């Protein structure tokens, strides 16, 4: 069986739980699957002024912990630890979507599938933040994009 390379951008534990639950239900041959867990760490220009330097450092370690926990959960359901890569990008991007697209494009590894979670949003929220999944589906070339929708 051919190797499958999966990119999973994670923002919080909610996304991670949903995606891992879904992966566990997929008929994948775990040893042939390489997973990259990605977090786009956005440090806003005036963040330290607002939240303090300690907060920013804590945030970075918080997101690293989320990815490490997701890796442990993936190992628990049968994926190989050596096939799971954790990537926290601290490059500055205008939006998380731009970060995912850039990381996808400049990665040496070619991803066969990108899995994202789409939280249910009201019209007002969609107006405010836009729809990341639509942007990714349009922008990512040569890959499949799997969008997992939540009920709430």
């Amino acid at each position, binding site marked *: 069986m051919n190797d499958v390379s999966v990119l999973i951008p994670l923002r919080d534990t909610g996304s991670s739980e949903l995606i891992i639950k879904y992966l566990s239900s997929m008929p994948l041959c775990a040893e042939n699957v390489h997973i990259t867990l990605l977090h786009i760490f*956005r440090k*806003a*220009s*005036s*963040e330290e*002024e*607002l*939240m303090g330097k300690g907060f920013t450092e804590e945030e970075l370690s918080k997101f690293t912990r989320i990815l490490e926990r997701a890796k442990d959960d993936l190992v628990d359901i049968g994926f190989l630890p050596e096939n799971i890569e954790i990537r926290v990008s601290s490059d500055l991007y*205008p*939006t*998380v979507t731009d970060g995912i697209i850039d990381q996808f494009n400049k990665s040496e590894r070619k991803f066969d599938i990108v899995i994202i979670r789409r939280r249910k*949003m*009201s*019209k*007002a*929220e969609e*107006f*405010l*933040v*836009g729809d990341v999944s639509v*942007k990714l589906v*349009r922008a990512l070339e040569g890959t499949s994009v799997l969008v997992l929708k939540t009920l*709430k």
Partner: protein
Amino acid sequence: MQQPDRRIFLREFAAISHAISTYSDVNLLNSHLVEMISKSFKVKGSSIFLYDEREKQLFRVSSYGISESYQTKGPIYVDERFSEFKSGKPVFFSDFREDPRIQYPEEAIKEGIVSMLSVPIKFHEDVIGLIKIYNAEPWILHDEDLNSMCVIAEHLGLVLEYNGLKNFLDQVKIAIESLPLRMLRGISI
């Protein structure tokens, strides 16, 4: 009589205002704002809600210090009890236990919320959302803190509306790009 204790000074106000003007990611801005507001006021927590005109409901977009179960207690419908929507002015709930305007009083008591300040987020005359600040103890609000929060909410309203229009414009650009070239004659994109 107990005197109100002022909690937001120029330093906090400047930091919050600067963040509102400079953050480029509105999700990040909202989540940092609720945390900063809660810490500045030294209160239990706070939330930012957006008002959906179609559904006549408030939707929580960011929270700090509030439990998941309270956040998902049920839909928050906007009706005549929400005078901040009618008047566009902030409303202070000094005691949740005795206030008939509260939609979920039992849940609020269980969550440990005693008082609350609700400040409308406005874009010109329209109320587009609310900032709610929850306190776990009785609260005597200082007038200057109230004024500061109103100005912060006005700034936030401008940014939220700008961001929404920017997203809308992105969608229009995508739609225009998908038009056949014959329909774009004379249009420079």
